[in-house]
Structures are given as C-alpha cells and as structure tokens.
C-alpha cells in the first residue's frame, strides 16, 4: 500500500499524445522515470503503488515490445494487468470501437492502454471511458510513450536536448513515432531533421518547424543522433520505394553513411528492425553507437512513470480496497 498521496504531475488524466504535454510535464515524467530505472536495476523490482488497480492493454494491432513493456510496467507497480488482443476483422464485423469501449468500461479498469490502426482512436476512447487512457500508438498520429522513452535515452546519454541535432530517417509518412518524436524534441529545444525520399515524407512536413532532407549525406551531416524508422515490408516493392536494395543503397544506415554524422553520433531505432533494409546489422549490434537495447529498458521505466503519474489523477474514493 502507498503511504503518502503523491503530488499530481500531469494536467490531464489521459496521455493521448506529446501534443498535449508541456515541456515541464515532459521533464517531470523523465525525472520520475529515472527513479524507475533505478528500481528496475535493483533486486526488488516491485512496488505496491498500483495495488488494487486494474490495467487493461487493448491492442488492435499486433505488438510484442510495446505490449510487454506496458504489462511489465503495470506488474512492477503492483497493478492487475489484463491483455486483450482484438483482431481487427472481428471489430469490422459489426462491433464498433465504442461498443468495445462500453464493454471494457463495465469491467471498471483504472487505466487503459490502447493501440489502434486508426488515428484518433485513443482520443475517441478517452471520451467514452471513465478511466485513464494511454495512447500506445494510433494510426499515423502519435505514439507518446515511444517519444518519451527516446527522450529519456537521449537525456541519459548526452545530458539534454538544447541545440542537439537529431536526424529522423526513413518512413516518416506512416510513422507515429516520427510525429511524436519531432513534437517532443522540437519542444525541448532540439533541432530536428527529417530524412527520407519524397514518397515517404508527409504533406507540408516543413511546416512542423523541422528541416527536410532527401539526401542522406546532407541530412546526417553534423547530426548528434540518428534515429532510424522501420520501413514496413508491404510499403516496399514498388508502392513507395522501388525495391529493398535500392532503399538500402540510398537510405539504409551503414558505416559509410554513419560516418557522415558527427563523430560519436548515436543510433536509435524504435524496433522491430528490418536488418539490411533500414539498418545494417553491424551498426544495430554495436553497443558503442547503438542505443537500441537501452531504448527497450527505458521503455519499461517510462511506462511505469506514465502509469504512476496518471494514476494520481484517479479519485481515491472510487478505489475498491
């Protein structure tokens, strides 16, 4: 059982996107997550903070890493965790997202983590549910915990964001990770670049206050952080790029291209990786430059921080002890 009521960290009881956060809220979440990094590395990883709380992981898209990260975060905080994977086909066969939400609401969860293939799904659920809603990815809109964990990883390695040059490379068009990251990093004072072929850049991307590059050499020059994005296989083979080998030739990160960035530049990837498509294996596995494993560790800590912060907005009297 928790002893002291914790001070609130967030103004909202939902985490729908980075767009709804202020720089001070982001800093507070990162600071809180630091304590959970320490806890995760200690012998006793578990606390009773969320004892009696129910966390539902509602995933309309398959996800191993995000779902298990939230599950572990919930369990380490003492919550009861229920994983629900909903095949999209059964939903499109009649039950609407709202119906699903109403059903879930009747189970009285305290926290709901949702991933959905359509932008705005988490926002829609937040209007219909009485619990805290956490967006674990909605279409090509936002994936806020990914951006927060990336920020935590960066801050721990390089100390801060002001003036940092971050090149986000690859399928920006379809990427919620890119959208959340560019929002967060710009807000915290970093200089964000997007590097991609024209077919994988969203309309009016330059209006986001970022620099756009279609040439990887120019885009990586002087970059402190190279953030690679996953290129989904169904988007290759002629639809957005002509072939895997052509994509790797011009946009896949290998030693030659990495040498264009600032000496000592670090490489990130939200996973899962397509080795040999957007990133060469030897870079992905090089612990000197790759932060990929660290990102996963920070993922659990960030999600613990988010669950902790949001649970502080739940009224105590509703709690069933």
């Amino acid at each position, binding site marked *: 059982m928790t002893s002291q009521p914790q001070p609130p960290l967030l103004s909202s009881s939902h985490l729908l996107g980075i*767009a709804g956060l202020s720089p001070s809220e982001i800093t507070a979440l990162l600071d809180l997550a630091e304590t959970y990094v320490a806890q995760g590395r200690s012998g006793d990883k578990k606390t009773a903070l969320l004892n009696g709380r129910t966390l539902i992981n509602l995933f309309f898209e398959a996800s191993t890493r995000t779902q298990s990260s939230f599950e572990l975060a919930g369990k380490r905080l003492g919550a009861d965790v229920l994983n629900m994977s909903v095949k999209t086909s059964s939903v*499109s066969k009649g039950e*609407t*997202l*709202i119906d699903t939400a109403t059903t879930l609401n009747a189970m009285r969860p305290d926290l709901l983590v949702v991933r*959905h293939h*359509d*932008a*705005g*799904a988490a*926002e*829609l659920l937040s209007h219909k549910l009485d619990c805290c809603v956490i967006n674990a990815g*909605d*279409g*090509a*809109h*936002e994936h806020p915990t990914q951006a927060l964990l990336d920020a935590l990883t960066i801050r721990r390695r390089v100390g801060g964001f002001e003036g940092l040059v971050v090149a986000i490379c690859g399928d920006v068009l379809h990427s*919620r990770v890119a*959208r959340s990251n560019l929002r967060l990093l710009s807000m915290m004072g970093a200089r964000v670049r997007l590097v991609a072929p024209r077919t994988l850049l*969203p*309309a*009016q*991307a330059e*209006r*986001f206050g970022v620099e756009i590059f279609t040439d990887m050499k120019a885009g990586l020059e002087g970059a402190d952080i190279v953030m690679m994005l996953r290129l989904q296989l169904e988007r290759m083979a002629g639809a957005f790029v002509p072939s895997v080998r052509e994509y790797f030739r011009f946009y896949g990160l290998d030693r030659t291209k990495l040498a264009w960035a600032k000496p000592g530049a670090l490489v990130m990837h939200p996973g899962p990786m397509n080795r040999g498509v957007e990133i060469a294996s030897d870079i992905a596995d090089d612990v000197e430059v790759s932060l990929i494993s660290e990102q996963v560790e920070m993922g659990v800590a960030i999600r613990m921080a988010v669950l902790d912060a949001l649970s502080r907005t739940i009224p105590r009297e509703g709690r069933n002890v």
Partner: protein
Amino acid sequence: MMRPVAFKNVRLIDPASGLDAKGGLLVDNGRIADIGPRLFNDAEPSDPEVIDARGLALTPGLIDARVFTGEPGSEHRETLESASAAAAAGGVTTMVVMPNTNPVIDEPSLVDFILRRAAGTAKVRVQPCAALTKGLKGEVMTEMGLMREAGAVAFGDVDRTVANARVLRRALAYAATFDALVVGHAEDPDLTAGASATESEFATRLGIPAAPAEAEAMIVARDIALVEMTGARYHFGQVSTRASLALIAAAKARGLPVSCGVSAHHLALNELDVGPYLTFRKVRPPLRSEDDRAAMVQGVADGTIDIIVSSHEPQGADTKRQPFAAAAAGSVGLETLLPAALALAHDGSAPLARVIDALSTAPARIFGLAGGTLAKGAVADLTLIDLDEPFQLDAAMLHSRARNTAFEGRKFQGRAKMTFVGGQCVFDGR
C-alpha cells in the same frame, strides 16, 4: 377544393423575374393565381386563408438537388418520408434523391418504385436521379431512355467517378441523344483511395490518410473535355476547390453545357473544423482549405457555381462513432441548407437574390423541374422565410431520422417558417 391562400405584406423574392418587393401573392388550386406589389391593397379575394406575413420573405420553394435517403435498403437511417419531413422543415419543396441505395436505382422499375413510395409517403416532391452505369460500377451504361420515361430527372453515379474515360465518353454521348442531364462526381479514384481528408499540414498533424485537393480538378478537366466531345449536358454534383472552379468558368465561357453545385458544408466549413477528429464533419469530398472555401463563396456570388445543395447524407451511430478513417462520410443537411446559405447574404458575400436563385431557380432550370419561380400560373411551391431569426442548431430538434449534422451548436440567422407544396402547407413553424 382547397381554399385559396392569400399572402399579405410579404417581401416577394423571385430570382426568375428579378422581383424583390413588398406585396401579396394569391394561391388557388395549387398554382400561383396572382402576384404583385399592390395585390390585396384594395380588395381581398373571397374567403381565402389569409397569411399576414409582415417582415417575412416569400420565395419559390427550395430545390435540393443532392439528397441521400436510406430508402430502399437502409431505412433505419432515413426513409423518403422522414427525409421529406426534414425537407419541409428546412423550406425544401423538391428533393432530387440519389440512386446509391440498396438496390441501386439503375432500372426503370426502381425509378418507378421511388416515385410510388414518394407519392404515398413524402410531404414534398421527390425527383429521382438514376444511376449512369449499372450498379454504379462504371462499366455498363444504364437504360437512360427508359428511366427518363419512368421519371428520372438526371443520371449519375453519385459519389463515384467513372474511372474509365471510354465508358464515360459513351455514356455522355448516349445521354446527349436524349438531352438527358448527367451528374458527375470529380475525385480521382486512385489518388483518393482510402483518404478521409485533404492533404495538408493539418491532416499530417492528425495522422489521417489524406489525398491532394488536385484529385478533383484533374477529373473536372477530363470530364469537360468529354463534354466538349459529346455535347452532353453535364452537372458536377459538388465541387470544392478553386482549381475546379477556374476550369468550369473557362468551360462556361466557351459555351459548354456544364454547371456545378456546392454543398452548404463546403461554403461554411474548412478542413480545420474537423478539429479533434470530429467524424460528423467528415464529408465527401473532404473539407478543404480556407482558400478553397473562400473560392466556393465567391463562386456562388459570381454564378460560376450554379446551385447550393445540402448533400444530405444520413448516417447512424454505428457508421459515425468510429475512428475518423473508419467513420462513414456525410452529414444531414436538409434543415441547415437555407440557414447556411443565407449566411452568404448576411455577411455580404453574395446578393440575397443570387442565394435564392442557387437554392431554387437555378436547380429548377438545370434539372428541368417545375417551380423555381413566382410567376403567375406556376405551381405554388413556396417557402416563407424569416431572413433574420437567430437560432442555434440543436441536433435533437432535427426532423430527419438521422442526426449526424456537421453543424451541431452552430449559430445561424434565418430559417424557413412555412413551406407549401402545390399550395398545400407541409410545414408551419410559426
């Protein structure tokens, strides 16, 4: 026999004759028996029902050239009867109903079905637009001649662009044989596949699948070329971009028989009104940039856009309460058509007479319908309008079965007070 109806002290607005003056109008036997500024000044007809409408405007009944109902096939959304109640309450005396029902209205017996159902249930006139191609598939042309005889007033595949230019060329040439009106939809089907918004910074921020606005004008250009080849009378059911208007204005200047409509939504709202994924504002074509919206208003004012439509499209909670990309497009609009259009006159964007013309006289002319005029002898389809009454839209007050309005909570100025079809009062909101 109906009693004659005498309107006294009304502001008569008749775009067909250019009349805009105080006066009176007499309805007898379903027709306009007399009209004039000095009518009833000296004597009143014997035993009429007198409507002293001081301060109100009397116009030809409004004609909405783009109405979707759910009949047949989706009666839970809207029937001809429920749509007609909404129409009457919105001052609309004639609805041109779209053929994308289930089954599709693509053969004479189904045209006949619509007309018979309407005769039995609807409060206002119903005129069917039939499909241009069988099943709206864009492959085989329909029996336009027979369906015209059955009562279809136009032919079109509604919200689908006929992708195959050869099919459309032949359909237009065949339609021209009968001088039939073809109603087209301009959205490149490949560019717009899967899209629910106009490509823009805003859509990028929301992460909604989007298509470029140019997808409209490129089909407008193609279809104008086909009109030039075939001589068919062609009406773009809805346009929404400045680029489309430039092409249509140029085609009209060359004397081509093209016309176009715009929905009230595209006059009143822009892409930003989607806000945080408001699916009730998801329409087709999607809401456009402010520059395109302003071009639509200007197009109505200068007459490049001939008519204003509601594009009334009923949807249920099952199809609307979804994530934005999955939600159905469309908004009900019969009851907001007039108030939304009047905003153009109130804010000085377009003369009132032009607005009424776009709502009545022009659609009557283009679709070849009775009404659209206050001339002596014309059918007494009339709308009595309070041009100034302010109100805030409450979806719960709508008469249509579906309540998916894009205008929930919007403040309007002006609304229909009474609606007459063939001299008979079908709505009295006084």
